[in-house]
């Protein structure tokens, strides 16, 4: 669990680099009155990015598990995104915005809640004797949405992140690699681990309830 954290921090260097650009941009703009060009840019930004606010909020909420923090991060991410919008030439606005939401969330986690970043999967659940729980039983309980939510909330942040990106946004491995800033080859193994841990948790819960 410790190794992927290092990778996750790697984005910060990149992030600071782009915020240096943002600062320059802001200073230049400060000397100008808001003009038609800026309003046009805002309109174009909003048209491209506002449709992805549900996705932005959903990801932030899963990463932070706190509504207030999630809202702060979404607002901050939109401001950051707008300030570097002139550098966005791609067609995948959602992936671009989610990358910023993700980076902003991790910055907050690192600053205020470092403990969340180091939380590993509950060992008790790993070692609990639930080998007797059959796939069919898991399958049966997998209809319980509340249980799925609880299980997902228990997972480490990297796992919540990858499950949300894959299962809720339906993103490709390539897009997930870009957003989570991990090598494309790592996406499959991380997803595999995330699903396995979720299954473990479900199995543990089911055998406890028995």
């Amino acid at each position, binding site marked *: 669990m410790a190794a992927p954290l290092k990778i996750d921090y790697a984005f910060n260097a990149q992030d600071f680099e782009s915020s240096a650009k943002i600062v320059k941009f802001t200073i230049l703009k400060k000397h100008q009155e808001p003009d038609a060009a800026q309003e046009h840019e805002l309109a174009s930004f909003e048209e491209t990015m506002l449709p992805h606010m549900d996705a932005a909020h959903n990801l932030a909420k899963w990463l932070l598990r706190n509504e207030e923090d999630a809202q702060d991060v979404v607002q901050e991410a939109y401001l950051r995104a707008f300030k570097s919008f002139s550098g966005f030439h791609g067609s995948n606005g959602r992936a671009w915005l989610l990358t910023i939401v993700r980076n902003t969330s991790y910055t907050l986690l690192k600053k205020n809640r470092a403990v969340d970043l180091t939380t590993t999967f509950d060992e008790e659940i790993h070692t609990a004797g639930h080998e007797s729980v059959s796939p069919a039983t898991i399958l049966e309980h997998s209809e319980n949405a509340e249980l799925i939510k609880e299980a997902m909330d228990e997972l480490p942040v990297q796992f919540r992140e990858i499950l949300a990106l894959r299962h809720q946004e339906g993103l*490709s491995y390539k897009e997930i690699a870009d957003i989570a800033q991990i090598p494309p080859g790592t996406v499959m193994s991380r997803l595999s681990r995330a699903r396995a841990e979720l299954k473990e948790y479900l199995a543990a819960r089911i055998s406890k309830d028995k």
Partner: protein
Amino acid sequence: MNCEEATKLMDGYLDGELDPMTSQKIEQHLRDCRKCEQAYEAHTALAHAISRGAPYYKAQAELRQRVQSSLRDAVGVRASRSAARENHASLTSRWAKRRPVLPEIPWNWLALAAAIILAAIIASSFLPRLRPPTSDQFLATQLIASHVRSLMADHLTDVASSDQHTVKPWLDTKLDFAPPVVDLSSEGFPLIGGRLDYLDSRSVAALVYQKRKHFINLFIWPTTPKDSTAQTMVEREGYHLVHWSDGDFTYWAVSDVNINDLQSFKQLFEQQIARH
């Protein structure tokens, strides 16, 4: 391929992310190995449970307003000025209308949906596994996501009507194109309504049809050079997608009904259009 390799690649196979050669090898192994096949079925069920069960936390209206006003502050635009912004305001309120705030998902509905999905998984495991061409992979993912979201948010339609003469004018005013709308009630696919959706950075029409307890989303947009015109059938994550094009429009039907039903839906839809 042995069991160990198959297990290692199972997630990639499940997600449709393996190259065709490797996919074929896994398929072969799953046909030959009962143990891995069972593991794959359980894994598929789990994947569906996650997709269906995990709540999707939508942004609330206050957050939308907050973000927009902080953006305004960032460029120093004062309220009540600028025609451009007023234009834009109508665009965003359209969005707000289209995607209502639904922070929580109705659980009882999800339980039902999960049951339907499980039934679909069982049904689909008897069908040949179809592979989409790579260029359609991403689009297929987006289409399934839109389909699933329309069901999850309990927001299938913006205009709920089985009357094509109600649905069509509504869509015509919301879109910059006029999609064909036909009711197929007498053919067993009643029209439920229409919805605006957003795919790959463009507004598209979504017509919603029902087949027994299942829903079909039919996505329609004007054909662009980007769109392939070849007819395609895709099975992915327990959903079926049928794609066709008639020169003017590109169609994608997405549903968890079986592939034969979806194929006949397509034929009936085309026949009805030809009659209009």
